[in-house]
């Protein structure tokens, strides 16, 4: 998603490069060449631009309009103003979906990042078989997004399956997690925490960037490992940490596949895994209420936007950029 088109970057770089020596000399052929290059650049970009307009911008505008209508896909949309939004706030299932999602984000994201950081710290030290360990820890996030893993998860945590039997063996007769409204959300949390590979790799890259001299100097001054971690490692990787927190939080808000598949499409039992997007999907595709679903989607966008803004605002207090200290 969202990688800037290379052609555009290259083009602007070239334009700057072209212009710099052009000062004072003959400007016309250069400008002509620049315009021609630009045209070619846009030509190469056109599939991306067309895709963006047709598949992203267009649907977004349409969805914004539908959010204020009653639209069942078949009859033409009926304008109802803020009707969908007021219905949303009065709907107990919508509130449930907000609660479930908030719980998932608040529990899952910090746990995932903690684990990612912990494992990254272990793997940052050079030892034998390091490449294997890195690959092994990263593997789950490669397969994790797929449907099959959610199915495997379901098989692991359902009644009389591996986890249940292990618990019974240990004397904890609580039954499978999948059918228990009190436990099933933690199944989802466990699944996302297990897929900590991507933030781990980013943490690893961040850890490699920390200058060795800082640790040596601190050691000379008598700082122990804990102190070195707290006062050198954490501040030095805080930009990377910020990036991970931001990305993982946004990502968590959009959880859908695992909740949908693990509950056989019901997002239950007892709405215990009714995450926001799942309810949105049910309203849109099962109840044919595209207007309501669109309104929900825009509420999600606003919520994620707000959370992102708060995170950006908070970074002044805890994220240290090297440029700022100079």
């Amino acid at each position, binding site marked *: 998603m969202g990688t800037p088109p290379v052609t555009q970057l290259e083009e602007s770089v070239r334009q700057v490069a072209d212009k710099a020596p052009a000062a004072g000399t003959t400007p016309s052929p250069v400008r002509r060449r620049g315009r021609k290059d630009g045209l070619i650049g846009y030509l190469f970009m056109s599939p991306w631009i067309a895709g963006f307009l047709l598949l992203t911008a267009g649907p977004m505008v349409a969805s914004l309009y539908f959010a204020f209508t009653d639209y069942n896909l*078949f009859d033409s949309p009926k304008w109802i103003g803020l009707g969908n939004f007021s219905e949303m706030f009065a709907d107990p299932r919508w509130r449930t979906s907000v609660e479930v999602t908030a719980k998932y984000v608040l529990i899952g994201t910090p746990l995932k990042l903690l684990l990612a950081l912990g494992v990254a710290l272990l793997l940052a030290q050079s030892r034998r078989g390091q490449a294997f360990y890195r690959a092994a820890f990263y593997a789950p996030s490669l397969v994790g997004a797929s449907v099959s893993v959610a199915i495997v998860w379901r098989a692991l945590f359902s009644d009389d399956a591996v986890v249940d039997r292990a618990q019974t063996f240990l004397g904890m007769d609580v039954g499978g997690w999948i059918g228990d409204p009190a436990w099933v959300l933690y199944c989802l949390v466990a699944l996302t925490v297990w897929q900590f590979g991507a933030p781990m790799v980013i943490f690893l890259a961040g850890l490699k960037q920390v200058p060795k001299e800082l640790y040596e100097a601190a050691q000379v001054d008598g700082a122990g490992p804990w102190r070195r971690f707290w006062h050198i490692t954490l501040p030095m990787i805080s930009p990377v940490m910020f990036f991970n927190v931001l990305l993982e939080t946004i990502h968590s808000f959009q959880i859908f596949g695992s909740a949908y598949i693990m509950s*056989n499409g019901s997002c239950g039992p007892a709405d215990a895994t009714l995450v926001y997007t799942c309810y949105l999907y049910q309203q849109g595709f099962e109840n044919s209420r595209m207007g309501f679903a669109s309104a929900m989607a825009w509420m999600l966008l606003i919520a994620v936007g707000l959370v992102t803004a708060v995170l950006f605002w908070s970074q002044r207090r805890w994220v240290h950029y090297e440029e700022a200290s100079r």
Partner: protein
Amino acid sequence: MRMSRHVERRTFLKAAGASLAGAGLTAAGCGAGSGSSGGPVTIRYAWWGADDRAKKINRTVALFEKKHPKIKVKTDFQQYGDFWKKFNTQAAGGNPPDVFQNAIGFLRKYDAKRVLLDLDAQAKKGNLDLGDFRAGLEKFGVVDGRLLGVPVGSNSMGLIIDERVFEKAGVTPAPGWTWDDWDDALVKIHDKAGVAGDSGPFGIMYLYDLILRQNGKAFFTEKGLGFTESDLVPYWTESMKRVRTGLYADQKKVEQIKPKSALAAGLAGGEFTWDNFTARYSAEGKSSYAIAPIPTADGKKTGQYLGSLMLSGSARTKHPAEVATFIDFMVHDPEVGRIMGYDRGVLSTNEQYEAFDPTDPVSKKIAAYEKQIAAAGTLETITPHPAGADVVEAAFLRIAADMALGKAPVEESARQFFTEAKTALGS
């Protein structure tokens, strides 16, 4: 090779539409798409079900293509829930399959959205024979005088029981038994066989409909709901009591083993469902299963009617004649009856019913059960459900399950159901 511009464009549009919907339809050769040209015509046939049904349906389609070489049939199937999500999206995009499996709960819904083909015109042209249907099925797909579906099989609600459990408890259900008898049976099964008597029927709309009908009401009227909160609250209150006392199965376990049925998993001695499910349960479970009659309030009236799966056509199809020919073949051809058996209920036409001679014990039980309820003379006619009924049914099932898992008390659950039903039926 001459190809008219008109055909070219249409083929292109068709292919584009199909690929957008993910169906991946390819134009079937030169000249496809125009019925009048006399060349081969391709129709799309979509249905829901599982693998064993897929095998049977593919055999019937192959047979059809052999006997009608100018019509090609492309099939497409999903599980029940996914089927309707895909169908809904395709229909909204103006690209529904030409022929598709349908059920009573969807007739008014899609009729109101002008998706269904009125097959009457084709019947009048002689492309579809409406004779020879079994008693009770002649007018099944008619809504407000329009023929919107043709039944392929009939089924009815029944109480499917684990024979070994009932034997152990010393309970023998007989036609005309009452709800009090059934209550006693639940206790006996719980005490003597050590298992819950039922998997918990409080979320099954079709059973509650029968209970309401026995009391002169119904789940649906033509426009909305035929009952009130004051009907539902006592029913659910009593049900919750039975969940707590173990007369109904542990709902957490029932939830865990889904999509397998609680009866087949041995969690309960009985389960109310469609009679043709006996076949599925026998394949799933380890015990032997039979169909017991629906308990009554007065020793006679069961409230039962024949339910059925149907074949419907799309109002947007470019080949209504071929669609009608296909449906005609599927409901009348004796060989199709022999292949399908009672997979979609007891075969709907006399030709097919007589052609299929059930040899396996399960099919025999289903046939005997339907014969018995027909002979009892208590069968009623079904009300075609109002638009939105499918959403109401799903809400009834979900809210009842949530309640049984302790999410909300009975009164609150009932209130929630009526709120959601109002939204679904109002749109």
